[in-house]
């Protein structure tokens, strides 16, 4: 490539600043949308520069434009049609293709280096190898993640005998190939490195249980960021370096934040299954007696309550019952009750996911209350209606030091005068431990798929 004109360097710097402003904007509720738009504009502007960089003599312009058009059309289609409940898999997919693109770009750059005699500084080649390997890991890992969440395959941890050994061997192969590549750049080594990277990605994500997948998505997102940063170094492109690093750093930070909010460690999530510890709920179904109620009984409890707090969770998202729930809340509101939603930070399938789902169901913002705001109100609530949530109200987090969720802050649903649980069975939640609250004498269980029972409940309340 010819020397980069100063104006392009300055444009890239400006775009880098826009990316910073975009992230900053995205982290505040009022500025989020503008932040995203600023980032998008900067990205588009940056991608236009090659077409105006005359010394570059860009070839294949029609093909490139066509490829961009195809990709954009696909992206926009996906982005427009995806269900909000499927957001985690969408993010995973977008992330994966980004990682794949980075790996391919690095392979092409390797090809270029070899064509020019293979005399690149060792650090450049190391960065190339890093981009190829980690980009492939990110691609394959994200695709598996997607398949798990989209239920194209089982979401249970997939472990087979010898997995740790295969995984270890693949990691060794990555290192060996990378060293080879640095010493003597060869195309075959790059391609094999990419393929082993794919294998590592698959093996990394297979043993992770469905509920842990969001953490993995966030981690792979950070990986892709670092890959793009390394790609920026390889291509001597400062914007890729800045943009990729920003995402890598903030993504890593966000991953740790999430893991802490769930009371888990990232290594435990990633390697727990390899070490034999199951990361999905054990599924031990309790046979202790519980109080089960009909939708009609539940409707009476709700219909005559003055203060109701809804605790939505993972199961609500799975059942897609949020729209019906919102209708129920409206009806209760019309009957004079004060109703709020208590949002736990890790309720749902990814952090903050409940907020998106309830926003989609057009639940007014004022009814959504964050954990810290609402936790004091439960003691004055007549009914806490727990819909498809479990771990986020499990008192074991406070009382049982050995429990996997011990230390995770929970919603104090146990302080409400009555608790109604809507779930399908006595199976435990993601953490795989019994929820003492289910056996509390204040608790009534309304069994059935959340969407189903919710419509019955709604009708019963309307009939009161």
């Amino acid at each position, binding site marked *: 490539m010819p020397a980069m004109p100063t104006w392009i360097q300055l444009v890239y710097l400006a775009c880098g600043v826009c990316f910073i402003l975009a992230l900053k904007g995205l982290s505040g509720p009022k500025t989020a949308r503008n932040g995203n738009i600023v980032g998008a504009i900067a990205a588009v502007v940056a991608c236009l520069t090659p077409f105006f960089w005359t010394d570059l003599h860009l070839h294949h312009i029609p093909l490139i434009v066509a490829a961009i058009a195809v990709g954009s059309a696909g*992206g926009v289609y996906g*982005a427009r049609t995806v269900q909000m409940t499927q957001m985690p898999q969408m993010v995973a997919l977008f992330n994966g293709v980004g990682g794949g693109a980075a790996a391919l770009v690095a392979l092409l750059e390797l090809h270029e280096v070899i064509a020019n005699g293979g005399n690149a500084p060792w650090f450049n080649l190391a960065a190339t190898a890093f981009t190829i390997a980690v980009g492939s890991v990110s691609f394959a890992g994200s695709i598996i993640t997607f398949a798990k969440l989209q239920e194209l395959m089982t979401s249970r941890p997939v472990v087979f005998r010898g997995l740790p050994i295969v995984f270890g061997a693949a990691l060794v192969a990555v290192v060996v190939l990378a060293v080879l590549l640095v010493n003597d750049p060869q195309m075959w080594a790059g391609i094999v490195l990419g393929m082993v990277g794919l294998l590592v990605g698959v093996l990394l994500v297979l043993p992770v249980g469905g509920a842990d997948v969001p953490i993995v998505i966030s981690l792979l997102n950070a990986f892709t960021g670092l890959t793009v940063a390394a790609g920026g170094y390889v*291509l001597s492109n400062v914007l890729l370096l800045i943009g990729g690093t920003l995402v890598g750093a903030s993504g890593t930070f966000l991953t740790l934040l999430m893991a802490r909010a769930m009371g888990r460690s990232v290594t435990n999530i990633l390697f727990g299954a390899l070490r034999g510890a199951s990361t999905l709920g054990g599924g031990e179904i309790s046979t202790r007696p519980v109080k089960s109620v009909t939708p009609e009984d539940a409707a009476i409890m709700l219909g005559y309550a003055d203060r109701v707090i809804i605790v939505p969770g993972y199961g609500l998202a799975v059942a897609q019952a949020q729209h019906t729930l919102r209708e129920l809340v409206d009806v209760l509101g019309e009957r004079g009750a004060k109703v709020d939603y208590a949002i736990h930070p890790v309720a749902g399938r990814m952090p903050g996911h409940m907020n998106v789902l309830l926003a989609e169901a057009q639940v007014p913002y004022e009814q959504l209350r964050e954990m810290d705001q609402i936790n004091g109100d439960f003691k004055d609530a007549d009914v806490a209606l727990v819909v498809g949530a479990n771990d986020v109200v499990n008192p074991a987090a406070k009382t049982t030091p050995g429990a996997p969720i011990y230390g995770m802050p929970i919603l104090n649903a146990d302080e409400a005068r009555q608790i109604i649980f809507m779930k399908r069975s006595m199976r435990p939640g993601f953490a795989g431990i019994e929820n003492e609250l289910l056996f509390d004498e204040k608790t009534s269980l309304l069994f059935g798929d959340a969407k189903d029972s919710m419509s019955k409940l709604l009708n019963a309340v309307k009939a009161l």
Partner: protein
Amino acid sequence: MTLDTGVVWLTIFVLSVFVGIEVISKVSSTLHTPLMSGANAIHGIILLGAILVTGTTDNNIALVVGLIAIVLASVNMIGGFVVTDRMLQMFSRRKPAKKQEQAAQKDGAA
């Protein structure tokens, strides 16, 4: 220039790490999903790299690989920004509420 090229890149990298962490360290958990998806879109800037390598190659296989990279990167970048905007739009749309709400209710939320 007294700085080695490698040190320059390292410096920019290190500073970007600090910026990346500090800038989002005050995010509320409400915004975790859109933030993740927006950050995801930002690394779609690999599209720029894909365009540059594809547009300067003369090898046919490389061209094909490059075009695939461009397609993938465009999906990441454009799709990422659009889906983030769609989510954030939902957040802002519900503020006025009330009237729209009742309208939506009549439409019948299935």
